[in-house]
């Protein structure tokens, strides 16, 4: 009996040393288990949404697929964890997921106090309002006295409060735990207004009974730079996620797409492109990645323009204009990435 107790105590002591030493590099962990664990939303069309067969697609999903392509040369080595807004940070902090790509706004408090790091912006967004057309509202300034539905636990909740306070408008907040139920409450007439990021409004509008009966108001009341998030402290992993995004933007700027990348790799004489695609130099080794990692990202997932068009562009039901998300070289665009050098 006594020796049993001794065994128990010593196993507890061993367990203590193991868990203390468990924080190896995320890249090593990912390589060891053979896939990237990616936290996504429970369903925002165009950003992260599963079809009836369980296949995920969207801009945020492609951010994870790009990382998987960079490490394994295969965009399919990703497992997805659907998370509600309030679960997402805890899931990342606790190590349940490797990347959080869940249309998450980059803010000071989140970056500074949550033990998290934002990697790059994969979508520049801003909060807006959606109302029924038959209300005849043309501006957010007409919303005095309105009832507003929104999802709980997002920056949306605070922006909404700030907007109505700043403009001295009265309102009734209805804050629902999950986005789908918030939308259902709006659709059933509990609220006059539904508010979230404008991309989200466009995406959610496709789910309503009659999408054409609703209109998105012109005002944008906040800056919402959305992007993938990683745990604080693993700089290598952060760099991998950041540059998986940056090479996609650089590729679009250089005119390289998934369709012509193989041809360009063979034929090009441009040293910049050769460096990017891993023909020359040793760019991969600096991040412990294969030499052709950027080539794989572009070939398997595409450049940023392709990702945008495929998921949220005018040809999709979400139907968003490029707007701020156009390249910096085009009018109105601010999408800019540091050079691969």
């Amino acid at each position, binding site marked *: 009996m006594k020796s049993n*107790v001794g065994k128990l105590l010593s196993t507890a002591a061993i367990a203590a040393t193991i868990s203390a030493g468990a924080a190896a590099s995320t890249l090593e962990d990912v390589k060891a288990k053979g896939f990237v664990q990616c936290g996504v939303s429970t369903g925002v069309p165009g950003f992260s949404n599963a079809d009836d067969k369980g296949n995920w697609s969207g801009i945020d999903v492609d951010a994870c697929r790009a990382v998987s392509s960079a490490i394994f040369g295969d965009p399919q080595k990703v497992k997805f964890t659907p998370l509600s807004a309030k679960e997402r940070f805890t899931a990342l902090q606790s190590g349940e997921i490797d990347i959080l790509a869940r249309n998450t706004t980059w803010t000071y408090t989140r970056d500074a106090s949550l033990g998290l790091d934002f990697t790059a912006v994969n979508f520049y967004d801003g909060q807006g309002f959606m109302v029924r057309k038959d209300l005849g509202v043309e501006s957010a300034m007409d919303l005095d*006295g*309105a009832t507003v539905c929104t999802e709980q636990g997002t920056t949306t909740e*605070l922006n909404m*409060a700030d907007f109505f306070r700043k403009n001295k408008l009265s309102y009734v907040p209805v*804050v629902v*735990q999950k986005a789908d139920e918030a939308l259902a409450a709006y659709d*059933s007439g509990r609220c006059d207004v539904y508010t979230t990021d404008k991309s989200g409004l466009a995406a959610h509008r496709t789910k309503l009974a009659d999408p054409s009966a609703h209109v998105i108001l012109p005002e944008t009341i906040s800056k919402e730079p959305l992007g993938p998030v990683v745990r*604080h*402290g693993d700089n290598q992993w952060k760099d991998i996620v950041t540059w998986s995004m940056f090479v996609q933007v650089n590729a679009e700027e250089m005119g390289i797409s998934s369709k012509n990348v193989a041809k360009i790799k063979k034929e090009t004489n441009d040293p910049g492109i050769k460096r990017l695609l891993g023909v020359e130099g040793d760019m991969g080794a600096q991040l412990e990645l294969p030499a052709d990692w950027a080539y794989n990202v572009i070939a398997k997932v595409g450049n940023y323009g392709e990702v945008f068009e495929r998921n949220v562009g005018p040809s999709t039901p979400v139907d968003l204009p490029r707007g701020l998300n156009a390249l910096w070289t085009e009018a109105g665009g601010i999408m800019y990435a540091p050079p691969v050098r």
Partner: protein
Amino acid sequence: MSDKTTPSNNSFLNDAGNRALIFQILLLAMVVFAGYYLFSNLQANLDNRGISTGFSFFNEPAGFPILIHLIEYTEANTYGRAFVVALINTFVISLLGIILATIIGVIMGLARLSKNWLVARLATVYIETLRNIPLLLQMFFWYFAVLAALPAPRNSYEFADFLLNKRGIYSPNPISQDGFGLVIFGFILSLVASIGLIIWAKKRQTRTGLWFPAYWSSLGVIVGITFIFLAIAGFPIEFDLPQKSRFNVTGGMVLPPEFVAVLVALSTYTGAFIAEIVRAGILSVNWGQTEAARSLGLRDNLTQRLIVLPQALRVIIPPLTSQYLNLAKNSSLGAAIAYPELVAVVMGTTLNQTGQAIETIGLCMLVYGSLSLSISVFMNWYNNKMSLIER
């Protein structure tokens, strides 16, 4: 203990009492060690990841609105204040839910025992349906079904100065004017008078055996005296009437659909369980008690009130306590349909804005723990009071 009969084995470790003590100390040490290990591990991991800890965020401005607040609250108030608002919302829904569920449960439990075939069957259908459908589903049903059935604010149903629409039930809001203090004085006076009346009636009954309808007449006393004082003060109340505006209804008092849906779902669901407990309690009282009461000449309702129910209560109270505890904890499901109770405000919004997961979840556990313990303590006290006094 046994060392006198076996003197040869008289060592310290061979004593059964000593051994039991040693194992208990070892067990306690392991529990303390495990707790300490988990806590220090948590602290170390939080430090490693640069996550700030502590409750200092309670003094920072919250910045978010809350739909239902019984105390003054605006976005400029602190997280601490938001916590108190949410706490009150949880208490209010639990308390009202417990009262309503008890009323529904007693009525339905008696109805199921009714000799009227239709009444008994209807009660059975109610109990079996609501007991067997998950509560969350019922909440969604009440919320979305009620929302779908009601008209938009523009086409509100109107009864007198009351309005009913998707945004809630609106009623006139009484605003006290000068001289209202006199009415409050009158009300307190009437309360004192009615308590005196009840005491007098009880004393007279013990002395002479004559019965007096003390409760009904004291109700009359309260209404009557308060009304006289209202008239003397010249009816110092004005009503703020609800008015239809562009989007909503402004003015008046409002009962939002979230509150109504949570209250209805909680009380009808728990009421179904209570009905079965009440039925079991009444059936547990021996039929001989009823027969004895009848042979003494007691009428049917007096037999129930004075003989059957007091004995049934002894069986009813312990399981009833569990139902009350369940109801209080189930109120957390209100978060799903936008009722701003503790889980919604603290574990939802506050957690997400501040990222203090351990603190907020710990706080919620503490609150539900103390809420449940206080209900438990109260019900145990009541149970002791009601239990059979053996002489």
